[in-house]
């Protein structure tokens, strides 16, 4: 645990944002000086209209996935889940594939399909959980989530099978690999109305996550309404995830690994670990996206990079440290 982690995290975040602005292929490959960018009209326009929205989107994507993963882990009392857990990611993938196959695949329809079906994944999981007749409410949600995720995965498989292998199948595959190459300010502004209220709600209610991570009857004995509060927080986390995933595609491992790293840095109290997760998530995805757009001459899919780095970080955590949870 670090003694004063937040000033350090904020400083790192600022530094990474600044370096990301200066980093790219134009005016020079690698890092350009601020004056080189300011003096070149094309470079200025490129930074303003392409690089900056992409940086904002990457940082937001990281904060949302990390926050949602953190919320899911606390609410399910399980350190190995993330927001893909209740069929949100699989629903989004299905929605995007559906739009690519049946709606000619224009960008906004794909995004809408992903957002709507991502959110539908959560709704279906919840509805199904209410009909399961055994187990506590958490176990019922887990079982329903597995069923819904699996159903959407099967649906996506079917859509891939019937899709046009020349045009649609590559589109589906690319969407699922995840990336931010098309992001504009319009995209950033479109996700903000959902992402901002969701994040604010999660941040202001973060202390209660400690409470809701207790067994249900204990949380109840402390005055919480565990089921109602859990639903509100899950909706916020799932809505924010569905919206960012609709723009970025499948970005795996962030929601799972970042909360663990944050807990390593500041301890497990959600009051500190949630804000730390937001910052570390933003930094992590932004660095991955910088690598995605600059490492090779072509773009590397962001989802591939987050999975690669995330797995390495996960293994390093498990091998070097205790993971900050009961083993």
């Amino acid at each position, binding site marked *: 645990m670090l003694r004063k982690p937040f000033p350090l995290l904020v400083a790192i975040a600022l530094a990474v944002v600044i370096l990301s602005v200066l980093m790219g292929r134009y005016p020079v490959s690698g890092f350009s000086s601020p004056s080189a960018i300011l003096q070149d009209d094309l470079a200025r326009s490129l930074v303003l209209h392409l690089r900056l929205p992409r940086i904002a989107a990457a940082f937001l994507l990281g904060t949302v996935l990390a926050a949602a993963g953190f919320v899911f*882990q*606390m609410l399910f*009392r*399980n*350190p190995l889940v993330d927001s893909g857990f209740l069929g949100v990611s699989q629903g989004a993938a299905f929605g995007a594939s559906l739009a690519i196959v049946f709606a000619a695949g224009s960008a906004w329809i794909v995004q809408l399909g992903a957002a709507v079906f991502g959110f539908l994944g959560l709704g279906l999981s919840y509805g199904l959980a209410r009909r399961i007749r055994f187990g506590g409410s958490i176990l019922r949600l887990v079982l329903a989530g597995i069923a819904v995720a699996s159903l959407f995965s099967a649906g996506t498989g079917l859509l891939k099978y019937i899709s046009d292998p020349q045009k649609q199948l590559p589109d589906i595959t690319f969407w699922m690999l995840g990336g931010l190459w098309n992001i504009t300010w319009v995209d950033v502004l479109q996700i903000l109305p959902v992402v901002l209220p969701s994040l604010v709600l999660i941040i*202001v*209610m973060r*202390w*209660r996550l*400690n*409470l809701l*991570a*207790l*067994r*249900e*009857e*204990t949380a*109840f*004995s*402390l*005055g*919480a*309404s565990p089921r109602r*509060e859990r639903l509100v927080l899950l909706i916020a986390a799932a809505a924010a995830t569905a919206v960012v995933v609709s723009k970025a595609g499948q970005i795996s491992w962030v929601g799972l690994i970042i909360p663990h790293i944050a*807990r390593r840095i500041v*301890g*497990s*109290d959600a*009051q500190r670990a949630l804000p730390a997760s937001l910052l570390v998530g933003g930094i992590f995805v932004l660095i991955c996206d910088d690598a995605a757009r600059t490492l090779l001459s072509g773009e590397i899919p962001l989802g591939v990079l987050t999975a690669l780095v995330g797995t390495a970080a996960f293994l390093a955590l498990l091998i070097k440290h205790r993971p*900050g*949870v*009961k083993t």
Partner: protein
Amino acid sequence: MKARSPIVRIDQMSFAYSADGPEVLTDFNWEFPQGTVTALLGPNGSGKTTLLNLVLGWLSPTAGCVRVNGRDRAETTRRDWSREVGLVPQEEPPVFELGLLEYTLLGRAPYLGLLERPGVKDRKAAEAALERTGLMKLWSRPVNALSGGERQLAAIARVLAQDPSVLLLDEPMSHLDLGNTRRILHILKSLRRDGKSVILTTHEPNIAAVLADEAVLLKEGRILAGGSAASVLNAENLSATYGVEVDVRTIDNRLFILPRL
């Protein structure tokens, strides 16, 4: 002992976990007096923990009612109710490594709004609770890293920070060594002196004998015997409750209860 006003009153209460399932508690009537320690005894499956959850309000009776301080659970808000009734569950290993002080602070939730976080006053209450349970020196230690006995004391510290009128404890002294058992006995006795009412389940009749003012013996969801601990904890009642021969001896004015071999 002069009659005290009841703090928890149970009237003709029955409970089943599902509409077509068997009744776990049947036609249950009891008054728990204020400022006393009551021990609930009975074999596994006799309905002790279910009874605690019904008093807690986590479960709702299928018939009859439970009133705490004259009020039904439905007549009051969740937060108000949790200032009245607190719970120490049987075992609750936290999944995430919460520090002991952070864990104890959760007891202050009934005094905080949905968007509020604990302040200085709550921190003082939590620290006082840790002092009282003798855990203050461990305040920064993760709860998972504590021994079983210390974890049990931590759960008690949390309920002390909550400061309810009625404390429900589910097997608070199971798996504890003698030192920790003695610590918890002292804390529970001091709570009685503060006018708090304690209802605890236990598998150990000797704990009931040394601690409780009143004892209720349960079998198959019904009260087999109930009243002052000294009068209820006799060989005949305990044999009927557990279905084995029981020896009860009085040595130096204290009851000792053992199964006959």
